[in-house]
């Protein structure tokens, strides 16, 4: 029997039982749609996180006291500006080293006030991290050296304190001390759950006076290239360990952060897909069940086809195609439904959803495979029917 003929027969059989075929397909439709949507959401989340981490800047090495791992308590930093100078000597280029000391403070301009993160930083920050100043200018080395009371506002801080007015040249009060606004950052958006537009940069020296501390929370280094990043990290950590024998230091790269986050999101996506896969499996069992019913119902037809010359294989292929047609039609519908649902989720909620061709190909392949796997037993049963017994059935 020609394959085209077999497809025609299979389609005819599905049409003959429209409602039953539709309901059987529904199981596969829901399963495939669920896989497509959940994988899209997982992939979207992963892509967003990757973009955000990469948005921090490239070849970045972040040195912090303590161990970087999930579940470990943050360590109080023993670092000071003299450590930063030592690190700068190791790196050999001041413009590649950035520091932060952070404190939550009340920032006020006239009657408007906002509680925000105030970061004491070096003038090197825009070269190390990706940060662009939209208006005015950034801190200079002399601002840092002379501990001037100047501030660069994040776009969210600027708009909530000054609304439509230009903040550059205006006065703000941070923790009761007056600062002059010299610049406003361009809007950046969120990164890893932190609103990076909701912060104020002041010189680290000024911050030490303001906060009454000499501590530095962390040091970030922009490595000259990707190859030497680990080696540089080791040298910096060794230098800091020599200066502070009681404290552990760790250096993490973006790749490590991406790796950890990617692993977590990958597992999450896998778990979601597996849950959706279970519903696809249930759909497959439904297909198997209906195919067995179909074989039983059409026993006399099978007998007749055999009498006029159908080989066991012809009959088996016919029923297998019927099952595959059921699941691939269901799979195609489920894909369309999944893509529609994913775009809806993307458009109406902050959850990003990314449809990838491989997820669609996988969903379609899996639905075809479900048809084959769950169609094989009924098809074999049909193919092996004894024609004499089959003809007697009515």
């Amino acid at each position: 029997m020609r394959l085209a003929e077999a497809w025609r027969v299979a389609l005819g059989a599905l049409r003959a039982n429209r409602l039953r075929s539709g309901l059987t397909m529904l199981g596969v439709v829901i399963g495939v749609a669920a896989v497509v949507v959940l994988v899209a959401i997982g992939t979207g989340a992963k892509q967003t996180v990757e973009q955000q981490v990469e948005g921090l800047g490239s070849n970045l090495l972040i040195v912090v006291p303590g161990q970087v791992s999930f579940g470990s308590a943050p360590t109080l930093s023993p670092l000071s500006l003299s450590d930063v100078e030592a690190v700068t000597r190791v790196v050999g280029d001041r413009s590649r080293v950035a520091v932060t000391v952070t404190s939550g403070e009340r920032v006020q301009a006239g009657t408007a006030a906002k509680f925000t993160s105030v970061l004491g930083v070096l003038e090197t920050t825009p070269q190390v991290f990706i940060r662009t100043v939209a208006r005015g200018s950034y801190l200079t080395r002399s601002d840092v050296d002379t501990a001037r009371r100047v501030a660069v506002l994040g776009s969210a801080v600027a708009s909530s304190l000054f609304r439509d007015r230009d903040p550059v040249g205006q006065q703000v009060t941070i923790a009761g001390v007056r600062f002059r606004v010299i610049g406003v950052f361009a809007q950046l958006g969120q990164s890893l759950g932190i609103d990076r537009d909701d912060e104020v940069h002041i010189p680290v020296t000024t911050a030490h006076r303001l906060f009454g501390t000499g501590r530095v929370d962390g040091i970030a280094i922009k490595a000259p290239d990707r190859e030497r990043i680990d080696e540089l990290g080791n040298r910096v950590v060794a230098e800091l360990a020599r200066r502070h024998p009681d404290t552990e230091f760790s250096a993490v790269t973006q790749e490590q952060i991406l790796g950890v986050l990617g692993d977590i999101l990958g597992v999450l996506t896998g778990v979601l897909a597996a849950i959706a896969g279970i519903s696809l499996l249930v759909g497959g069992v439904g297909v198997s069940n209906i195919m067995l019913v179909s074989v039983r119902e059409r026993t006399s037809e099978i007998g007749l086809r055999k009498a006029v010359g159908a080989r066991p294989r012809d009959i088996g292929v016919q029923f297998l195609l019927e099952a595959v047609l059921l699941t691939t039609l269901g799979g195609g519908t489920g894909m369309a439904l999944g893509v529609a649902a994913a775009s809806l989720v993307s458009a109406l909620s902050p959850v990003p959803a990314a449809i990838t061709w491989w997820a669609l190909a996988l969903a379609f392949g899996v639905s075809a495979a479900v048809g084959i796997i769950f169609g094989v037993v009924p098809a074999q049963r049909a193919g092996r029917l004894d024609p004499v017994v089959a003809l007697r059935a009515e």
Partner: protein
Amino acid sequence: MTAAAGTAPAIEAVDVTRTYELDGVWVPALRGVTLTVAQGDHLAIIGPSGSGKSTLMHLLGGLDRPTSGRLVIGGRDVAGLSPAELARLRNETIGFVFQAFHLLPRTSALDNVALPLVYRGMGGAARRRQAAAMLERVGLGHRVRHRPSQLSGGEQQRVAIARALVTGPAVLLADEPTGNLDTATGAAVLALLESMNADSGVALVLVTHDREVALRARRQITMRDGVVVPPAAPRIPRQREEP
């Protein structure tokens, strides 16, 4: 598969037996039947139900294989054939007509007739041409597009006869072909079968319990308890008295 047409028998059964297993008990259905269906033959197999005539028909049609004995259909010994080879042999050599018609529902008369050609791998156009010609020959040229449910019983059996003959088989096996039809329609169907036998040279094997139908055949084979009752002349009147 009728290479030796004209001389070699279409079907030859020598001391054929068939035993079924029923709930662990072996039940003999045929206990040694020897029978030859010649090219263009016309014979009737008669006997009460349970006599083994259906089992014999299944064997002659290649739907089943004997437990022992030699069975040659269209020059091929069925003993060594796989189910697939047996299917091909049926397709090429045998045409079946059943009591219950066995037409595919939701399928036109034309496609029902063309069905055996599907399993020959014949293309759609050639298949339909051949099927249409066959429907014309059984007098249903005007019913080509009709579905079985739209046809009378007599018409349905004519479609089934067209389907049995469309492949140009050597033997037409008809199992109670008039069993589901009224007397007049049954007679017309029988006449059609006989004319096909006379015109195209296809051997006609009728399985029936109707003596009147059987007596129209050139020869009769009477089955009882899984064996052929010898056609001894004095026994015929006695058999006639039986119900």
